[in-house]
């Protein structure tokens, strides 16, 4: 149930904060936890690709990034892969919202 709600000012604060909010009774902690786990899963997918691609391009691991694939270093492909995975994760995130 959506209601207009005015949150009372805490002690020491001069004005109340006005929000268009759901009633507190509607707070679904389990649903929030599900959202959090979904977000973490999506972030893990992206972060693995992102950090692996970034770290192989350092002096310590550059022998990996320098592996030639079709005569072009792997670093080029992993860079492009970050963009591709990013767009896929974006779509997955919005699809989850639509399902929710």
């Amino acid at each position, binding site marked *: 149930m*959506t209601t207009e*709600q005015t*949150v009372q*000012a*805490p002690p*020491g*604060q*001069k*004005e109340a*904060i006005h*929000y268009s*909010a*759901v*009633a*507190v009774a*509607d*707070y*679904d*902690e389990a*649903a*929030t936890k599900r*959202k*959090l786990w979904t*977000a973490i899963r*999506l*972030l893990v997918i*992206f*972060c693995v690709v*992102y*950090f692996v*691609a*970034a*770290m*192989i*391009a*350092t*002096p*310590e*691991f*550059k022998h990996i*990034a*320098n592996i030639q694939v079709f*005569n*072009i*270093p792997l*670093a*080029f492909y992993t*860079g*492009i892969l*970050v*963009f591709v995975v*990013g*767009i896929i*994760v*974006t*779509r997955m*995130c*919005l699809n989850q*919202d639509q399902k*929710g």
Partner: protein
Amino acid sequence: MNNPIAFSILAISLIAVVYVSWWSKKYTSTTTDFYVAGGKISPRLNGWAMFGDYCSAASFLGVAGAIALTGIDSWWVAIGFFGAWIFVLVILAGPLKSSGKFTVGDVLVGRFGGNSLKFLAMLTTVVIGTLYLVPQIVGAGHLFQLLLGWDYMVTVFVSATIMGLMVVLGGMMGTTYNQAIQGVILLVAMLLLMVLSTIIYFGGNPIAIITQAMSTVPPTSAVRVMGQLPPPAEGTTYGALALAEAIRNGFQNLPNALTPGVSVPNALNQFSLVLGLLLGVAGLPHILIRFYTVKDAKDAKKGAELTIIGLAVFYIAVLFVGYATMTILYPYLIEMLQAGQRGRATNMAIPLIGMELGGEAVLGIIAAGAMAAMLSTSVGLLISMSTSLSHDVYSGVLRPNSTDRERVVFAKIGAAILTGVALVASIWLKDQNVAILVAMCFGIASSTFAPVLILAMWWKGLTKEGVIAGLVVGLVVSLTFTFARFSNVPEVFGITVLGNPALYGVISSVTAIVAVSLLTKNTGRVREFMALAHRN
């Protein structure tokens, strides 16, 4: 004047920007309109506006210029700029829109209340915004210098004045339309450079840009061995390809432009940079404020999707344009490096390639694109800072009974003063690469607002004292290491200064937040806040 046609195109685009701001004034009658355009912006328009707001001088000039000078390692800044949006979309955009109203401070005050948080949020917003404004003024100063041949000091003063005036003229509605239009100009300008360079210099085959880069030693490496090259035949000079070939043949052990790990000092530096970039947008007030200009959380995310797709296309094009610039301007870039003008070479490589590809007309379009990047970002920064000054501090703490007009006047005076501060910093940092300057701001943002906001949205155990500790510690640590970096101080208290302050800043901030939260009890109106933030 050096380039009258290019300057005319730039002047027309500036007049158009001013007209849009003036036209939109009739839609700005209240402070809500001024701050967030009444929350009436469509997701598509907001997506383009976020793209324009985000693609600053760093993206348009700095990254491509840095790739042209150093090769593929510099692309990591662009990849990080992109990755940050995935982070924001997944973890922050929805709850941020649902729980805030005008500023980042609203979110924190919404949960915890209190004037101290309002003040601290404003202070952090102003620090990040002012530092972020510096590279915009530096980039604009270099651009005007190129177009008009004026002294750098004069050009930065003129650039800063134009940026300050933009805020006085328009509120968020005008800023939104300008940012959206400028976003389109930016993308078109970068794609135009890619297409023109591919057709004119690489036989219409973009892969040829990559293969040529693999046969080229980056100018920053080449400049070290230039003195050992045999001189060209008497009365001649090396052409771009001949010089690249001579260096490649003469010094086969040198890396090529696709060799990774050349300009990255070590893994720790790289980790700090990419961490700062990934978390940075989650703490950039001028980007976060844009989520308040739409109706609800779903619209906020829809807009972000459009921005993300645009950024992917843009930053991939940046790589190709950077490499094409390296090939086409090779001797010129080396010459500038030899003259000690690294900052100018990096920041002006893109306008110069525009001139090379299509003369003054294309230079004008590129200059308009670059100026669009700087103006849209600067105005976004000034709006977010002035909103925070006016809403969080002036009307929230100092004068709660002030009128709308007084609040807007206060905001504009604050914006003018902050522009002046940024102007002074721009003179100090004139030879820095604008992309690096922006990356440093990401480091500060990722050490302050980012952890605080993320934990405020998702952790019930977060306390008000934890937020204050996190913001103060993150700000102090990241600023200390930022200034140490710019002052060439190698160590602070025995800790090595990295290229980006994020690693130390994020760890200190998160540690402070968690430790203090576990020791204190004021979790604020946690159930009300969580219900609000996660209502959709």
